[in-house]
């Protein structure tokens, strides 16, 4: 029984790490291939965060219960809060830099 749980957790670790690496690789591909700055930023925010969360969750499962996994949870929280703010700062900076998105700007603010 204990052996089964051990092998199951090992499998879970590899699933998490592989999904994380898939997302990170798609981040790199999206950064190269996407045509517009804002779409590139989509790849740089969502795929990157999903990959980071997946890799760190794999590390937590690998570690088990302890202080190190608590530290990893703090790292996840820090990364999520920080990175979304960083992406927002970059986007508003690009807006100030006069980089226009290749789109139709809709003007429907429902008052």
């Amino acid at each position, binding site marked *: 029984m204990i052996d089964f749980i051990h092998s199951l957790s090992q499998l879970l670790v590899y699933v998490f790490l592989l999904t994380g690496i898939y997302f990170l690789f798609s981040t790199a591909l999206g950064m190269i291939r996407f045509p517009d700055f804002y779409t590139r930023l989509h790849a740089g925010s969502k795929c990157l965060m999903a990959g980071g969360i997946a890799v760190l969750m794999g590390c937590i499962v690998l570690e088990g219960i302890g202080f190190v996994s608590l530290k990893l949870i703090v790292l996840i929280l820090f990364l999520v*809060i*920080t990175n979304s*703010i960083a992406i*927002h*700062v970059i986007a*508003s*900076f690009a807006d*100030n830099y006069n980089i226009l998105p290749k789109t139709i700007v809709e003007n429907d603010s429902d008052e």
Partner: protein
Amino acid sequence: MSKINERLKKLHTIALVVALAVFLLVVVYEIHNLDNNSKRYLSEHYISEGVRETGAINLVTSVLYDYRAFDTLGEATVILTAAAILSLLVPVSKATMLGTKFSIIVYQTTKFSIPFLAVLGVHLIFFGHLSPGGGFVGGVVLSIIPILLTITYGVEFSESKLKPAKKKLVEDIGAIGFILLGLLGVVTGSNFLANGQANFGPGNTGELISAGLIPYLNVMIGIKVGAGLAIIFNSLIKEK
């Protein structure tokens, strides 16, 4: 003609980079050439005896604050003089920073994350002899707090919250405290900044209160580096 000139310039830069790379490779190879016995007796001694003599697990800390503590004093003096001269040379009291203003979201996040950054910096300073970090890194993380305030809110707000005179006072306390702690070694009858030879109670290796003087030296260096970097950043950002 101008095209050839530009091309020559590019070639020149590439050749410079390649030459620098080769030079660095040779230097690194010379440093790591461990066959030569005369170069490595000192590092062998540090590695094998460092934990027993100083009581600090972190080997870098034991070198920085025990074997080579006098050099650390010199490095700290560099920051002290840099901060003093910069605050003397840049007398602009009011200035505005370039750039866009951030939206209110960044303000909120900055405010929210400041206490936790402070906890991280203090932890790095106090656990410098047990885990990675130490005075210098902890000081840099502590100095991030005024830097964040300066970036998001502007120089004036940051200087009204943390007065420059107070920062200077904290920095001076750090510098004087380091020297006073060093003089303790002279009082007990050994060298200046002696720790391992003077037997300041090395304690049990691996606990919080151990390694003699090293934690206190870490605290002094930490507050000194933090205040000094904050002063340097705030005076450099004031541009007219």
